[in-house]
Each structure stands twice: as structure tokens, then as C-alpha cells.
């Protein structure tokens, strides 16, 4: 397995996933890097699809471990500062900021497993890969995902109404 090829293929996406899961940019990079360290340190081999699933599973567990007793998780998810991009107008920047805060608050309202299922599914993973990563049966993913989606939308709607 080539270090550069594997890193280039999966690192940006893994950081994005960890960032959505934690709401903390520094923690996201740290966890993504630790996942790669374990990948190469353990000599994990497999297809690119298998390697990707392994990395996301490892990162999911690292996030769980890090935030299991960290009561700041919800605060981080809700309060992470927003940096407007240089191309955004002030109005557009404000819209993006509000959309971001709404999505973060809605994610923070989900229980960890629902959040992991939702984010893995919307990162393009199959039901089987999600089931493997979060240690549930593949046949229950449809039920869990439907519930996670409903709760996420309800939380978004409640946030918009507030």
C-alpha cells in the first residue's frame, strides 16, 4: 500500500467526516491522522474500498473514545467558530453561518449512533459498511437510518422555528 496514494485518496474526506462528527477542526485532523498512523502501523492491507471503510470505522471509534466523557462535545458542535470564505458577500456569509449553526445544532441533538449512521451514509457508505463500522446488524441500518434522518429533520425544523 503506497503511503502517498492512500493518504491523498482518503485523508481530506476523512477529515471532513470527523469534522462533521465532532464540530472541532483540530480534533478532526488529529483523529484522522491517528487513524492513518494506525493503518500503517498495523500494516492493514486491502482494496481501496476496504481501506476507506477501515479508516472511517477507526475514526468513528476514536471519536467515540475521545468524546465519551467529554461534556464539551455538544458545545463544540454548536459553537465552533465560522470563518467566512473570502469570496462570500456579507449576506451570503451570514446565510452560510446560520445554515452551519442549524446543521450543527441538529447533529448535536442526535444520539451518537444516529449521528454516526447519518454521517457515514451521507459520506457514501453502504449499509453493510456502516453496520460493520458501528457494530450493528446490516438489516437494522434501514430502521436506524430512517429514524436518524427523521430526527435530524425535526431538529432542523425546530431550530428554524426558534
Amino acid at each position: 500500500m503506497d503511503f502517498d496514494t492512500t493518504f491523498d485518496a482518503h485523508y481530506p474526506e476523512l477529515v471532513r467526516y470527523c469534522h462533521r462528527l465532532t464540530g472541532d477542526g483540530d480534533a478532526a485532523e488529529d483523529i484522522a491522522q491517528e487513524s492513518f498512523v494506525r493503518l500503517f502501523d498495523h500494516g492493514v492491507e486491502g482494496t481501496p474500498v476496504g481501506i476507506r471503510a477501515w479508516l472511517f470505522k477507526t475514526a468513528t471509534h476514536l471519536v467515540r473514545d475521545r468524546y465519551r466523557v467529554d461534556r464539551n462535545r455538544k458545545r463544540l458542535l454548536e459553537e465552533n467558530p465560522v470563518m467566512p470564505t473570502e469570496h462570500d458577500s456579507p449576506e451570503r456569509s451570514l446565510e452560510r453561518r446560520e445554515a452551519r449553526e442549524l446543521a450543527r445544532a441538529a447533529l448535536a441533538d442526535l444520539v451518537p449512533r444516529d449521528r454516526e449512521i447519518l454521517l457515514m451514509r451521507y459520506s457514501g457508505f453502504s449499509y453493510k459498511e456502516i453496520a460493520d463500522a458501528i457494530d450493528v446488524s446490516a438489516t437494522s441500518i434501514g430502521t436506524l437510518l430512517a429514524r436518524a434522518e427523521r430526527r435530524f429533520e425535526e431538529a432542523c425544523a425546530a431550530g428554524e422555528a426558534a
Partner: protein
Amino acid sequence: MNHLDSATIVTIRDGGLVAGDARLHVDECPPCGAALAEAHGRAERIATALEVLAPERPVDLASAKAAVRARLDRRRDGGRRAWRLPPALGRAAALLVLLAGAVYALPGSPVRSWLRSDSLDPPTPVPAAPTLSEGIEVPVTPAGLTISLGSLGEGTRIEVRWTNAGSASIRAGTGTRYTVSTGRASVDVASDPVVIGIPRGDAPITIEANGRMMLRWADGTLDVSDEAVSQAAEAVVFLVGGA
């Protein structure tokens, strides 16, 4: 056929495995067809909502690669270097010991007076370790044992170790109350850490925390909950998610 439930609709939307007649049904049933269309719409809305959660700064691949390589190097070298004194420091330490010995041998040496017990400063108090109760020992019969821990606060640490004893041992913070009946030990935990020793053997053992299964050993198979934060051959550590 009844209308499809939301899980089946979502699974069909995502191309997952469902019974063949479910796909036929959704083609023929207007309410289920509408539910599938709504599920597609929900997926688009959620994808859009999540899209704004990109990292605030662009990923710096070169720096990240360098950081990972440095961590790998540290990890691979760490074990070899951990307890090795640099050669120059080792030689200096040996020289110091020899020098101190030589000075001690001289009559009236200040080293002698330093080492006299009545001239030593009182020892610095060491912070007390968390006080554990004496705990209990519970015999494990072939029928097995269930250890039920209650009143656990969020973040309570539970350490489970395998032992070669014939009985299980349970210890927790002072004030913890223990109740034992046949095949069951109930523990009302006052404070952590909770340390449990369980014998290696064939008897099934279950550990519950706040009513949730933490660990189950049966038929040579070990199941642990996702509240386990570390798992090794000799011990499993859990941090409880709260009551």
C-alpha cells in the same frame, strides 16, 4: 400487501436489500410511491444541510503527511528507546556514584551527615490514591455469575481483569454496598473506580451497568459493549455513559 414502513422505503431508496415484492409494491402503490419520492427529497435536503459543514480551513496535505510520518516514527522508535539512558548521561551518573562513595569514606564527610536519618527532611506527603472499599469475593459456580452495577454516574471507570482465582472479586469506592445471591452480585456503587476480577474458566459471566450489558463471557466468546474504551488480553476498561 400493507404499505411499506419507513425503513423499507429508505432501504429501497438507497439500493439496499429488500424483498422483491416490496419493490414491485412501491411501483404499484401511489402512497408508497409518494413516500419513496419524499425519502429522495429528504436525502437531498439532508445532503445540502450537511454540505455546509466543511472544515473551515483547507486541508494541508503536505503538513498532514509529515505529521503522520512523525507520529509513525515516534511510535516505532518509542518502544526501543523508552528505558535506555543516553550513554553520556549513564557515564556521568556512574561517576557521581563513585565520587559520593569516596567522599562518604572520609572522616567528617558532609555526605555522612546528609545521610543520617535525623537530618533528613520529613517525607513529602504523597496524594492519597482513590480509596477503594475492601470489596467482596463471589464464588463462581458452573451456572455462572451476573454482576449488576448500579448508581453509576457518567464517566465512571470500570476495569475488568481476568484472574486465575476461582472466584470473582469486586471493589469500588468507599461506601459502596454489595448484595450477593445465588449466581448474582448487585453493587450499589458509591464512587469509582470499579475494579472487577473474573476467573478464567467456562462459567458464563455477565457484567451489567445501570441495566445495560457491558460484558458477557459465554461459550468461549467475549462480547463487550461499545462503552469499552480499551480492550486487551488481560483487561477491558469501560467508561459508563451515564444512568
